[in-house]
């Protein structure tokens, strides 16, 4: 999981399939990132923001009661404890610092669950930038709390009424808007998707999850490295950041997708939102609408690096149903006092199923990234109850 080069290739995947009007803008982002990342000044600013604003490092929590029930040793990397409540903030602060360094005054973002939108609105407020967040009308309805949070933070939230009215369409709309606004605006992509350099850059900013967890596992586990490393996968940023910390170890990497949005597990090669990767498509090559109770997983594709990891066999991608995810959410709440995001609950659900099916051997150590907290999902769950 290294530098994908100027062409942004992860094996057969990635690249920069953007309109000519965005080629220069993407290059500019790449140049800026290549210049900023090794700069100790940039690193220092980012590290300080992650410490004093985000609350990093986040803990690695050994889960006692659920582990005992499952006969395994489960550890949770607690991204739910970050400022704004999900891992999205790690990436956003990095990009927002970059945008300011590039002299941009506006941030553009797409959002599904609203967590990336809230994170973007937060970073914008903090750094004195304006923020415009595109969000599918359907997601606006099911994540109303986050919509109001964004507005309170001063961001403009633009409803997207096209297509499935979810994350896919919000992303398209954000790209359309960016085409006309490249001069002052920076497009702050929320996952390891989009054209080069985004998949690589976002993974690099999210790598802090995996790097921290690696060190914490070394301190916590007699084996130093867990047997399994598990994370949910929408576009795949929390998983990519997590995997990056363990890809050079013996840990088995498992990405858990929503059954209705399983780009990596069920998708075919295609090109969308700037990258060649795996997408859910019908026989005619039309992108299929994803369906997940977790707005953040309601995306028909996956980041190109995941497609590559799948091809290599280095990571496995599995799927979980809405019902499994909600049950896992409740079970984790009841046994550990943690109300996870519905997205994160997918990862927990797979662990529960795999432990029950003997797929995880008894005593296996499992490091799971809990990507966010469930406050945003409470009204969705309430309707189900």
């Amino acid at each position, binding site marked *: 999981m290294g530098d994908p080069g100027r*062409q942004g290739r992860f094996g057969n995947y990635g*690249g*920069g*399939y*953007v*309109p*000519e*009007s*965005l*080629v*220069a*803008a993407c290059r500019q982002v790449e140049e800026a990132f290549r210049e900023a990342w090794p700069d100790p000044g940039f690193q220092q600013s980012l590290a300080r923001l992650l410490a004093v604003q985000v609350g990093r490092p986040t803990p690695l929590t050994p889960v006692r009661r659920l582990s005992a029930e499952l006969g395994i040793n489960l550890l949770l990397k607690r991204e739910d404890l970050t400022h704004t409540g999900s891992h999205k903030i790690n990436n956003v602060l990095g990009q927002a610092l970059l945008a300011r360094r590039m002299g941009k005054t506006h941030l553009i973002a797409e959002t599904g669950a609203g967590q990336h939108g809230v994170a973007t609105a937060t970073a914008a407020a903090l750094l004195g930038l304006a923020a415009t967040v595109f969000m599918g009308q359907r997601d606006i309805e099911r994540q109303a709390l986050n919509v109001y949070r964004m507005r309170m933070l001063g961001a403009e939230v633009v409803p997207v009424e*096209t*297509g499935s009215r979810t994350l*896919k*369409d919000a992303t*398209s709309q954000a*790209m*359309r808007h960016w*085409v*006309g606004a*490249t001069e002052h605006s920076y497009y702050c992509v929320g996952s390891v998707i989009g054209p080069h350099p985004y998949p690589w850059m976002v993974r690099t900013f999210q790598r802090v999850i995996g790097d921290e967890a690696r060190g914490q596992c070394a301190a916590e586990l007699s084996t130093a490295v867990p047997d399994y490393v598990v994370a949910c996968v929408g576009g795949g940023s929390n998983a990519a950041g997590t995997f990056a910390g363990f890809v050079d170890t013996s840990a088995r990497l498992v990405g858990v997708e929503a059954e209705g949005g399983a780009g990596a597990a069920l998708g075919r*090669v*295609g*090109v*969308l*939102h*700037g990258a*060649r990767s795996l*997408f859910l*498509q019908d026989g*005619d*090559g*039309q*992108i299929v609408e994803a369906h997940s109770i977790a707005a953040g997983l309601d995306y028909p594709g996956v980041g190109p690096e995941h497609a590559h990891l799948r091809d290599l066999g280095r990571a496995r991608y599995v799927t979980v149903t809405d019902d499994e995810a909600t049950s896992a959410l409740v079970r984790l709440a009841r046994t550990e006092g943690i109300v996870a995001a519905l997205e994160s609950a997918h990862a927990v659900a797979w662990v529960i199923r795999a432990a029950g099916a003997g797929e995880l051997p008894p005593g296996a150590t499992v490091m799971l990234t809990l990507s966010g907290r469930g406050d945003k999902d409470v009204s969705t769950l309430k309707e189900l109850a």
Partner: protein
Amino acid sequence: MRLEDHLRSRRAAGRKLLMPYLTGGVTATWVDHLRALADAGADAIEVGLPFSDPTLDGVTIQEATDAALARGATVRGILGDITGFTDDVPLVASTYYNLVVRDGPERFCAALRDAGISGLIVPDLPLDEAGEAADAAASVGVDLVLLASPATPQPRLAEIARRSRGFVYAVSLMGTTGERATVAESAATLASRIKGSTDRPVLVGFGISTPQQAVEAARSADGVIVGAAIMRRVLDGATPDDVGADLAKMRRALDQERDQP
């Protein structure tokens, strides 16, 4: 005749080129619209192969795309509809790269050629990623048209002009497709820049909505592409005759401009 040869010969005849756009399958009788456009003086016609996620299109063409897909339009169906359409007015397919990747560029381009299509525009396929498709298109004699934009820097512009086939598509402004009240200033600048580095035909597209705008945009270029303005009318229920009449007005405006000193 190859698309580019056709356009060059029309230009050589002193004519400003006019290329209307029509979303394939947008209505049950869309081929009648196509024919009306051909009859009204189109030098070539861009046929949109609808894709679920048209990220570079504005609301009008998004709507046309949705309508076509809702009718069940497919690449295969559209190509079937137009097979044997006409030899006089070349057709240029335009779509997003995912539909090219679906069957693989070679099979895709071969299918275009078999349906009598002579050019291909893929707005989300920039120069840097175009190699495979360009080879596939060339090998079956389809011209892969590249796009240049106001943001394209100089050496890259020359490279685009060099590697484009058929014509060079000058994107008039930084934005999506869709009608605009005026022609962007960037249009003339870009067209002149492209023409400064190639003698390949240069067509200006995006936002050309009226005969006056077409005339204005064509001044520094070899012609114009008109998309959303036509599709708006189609979506509003315009008949083939209506659309033909509209295009004829543009044709006349462009021809008059030439005939004036």
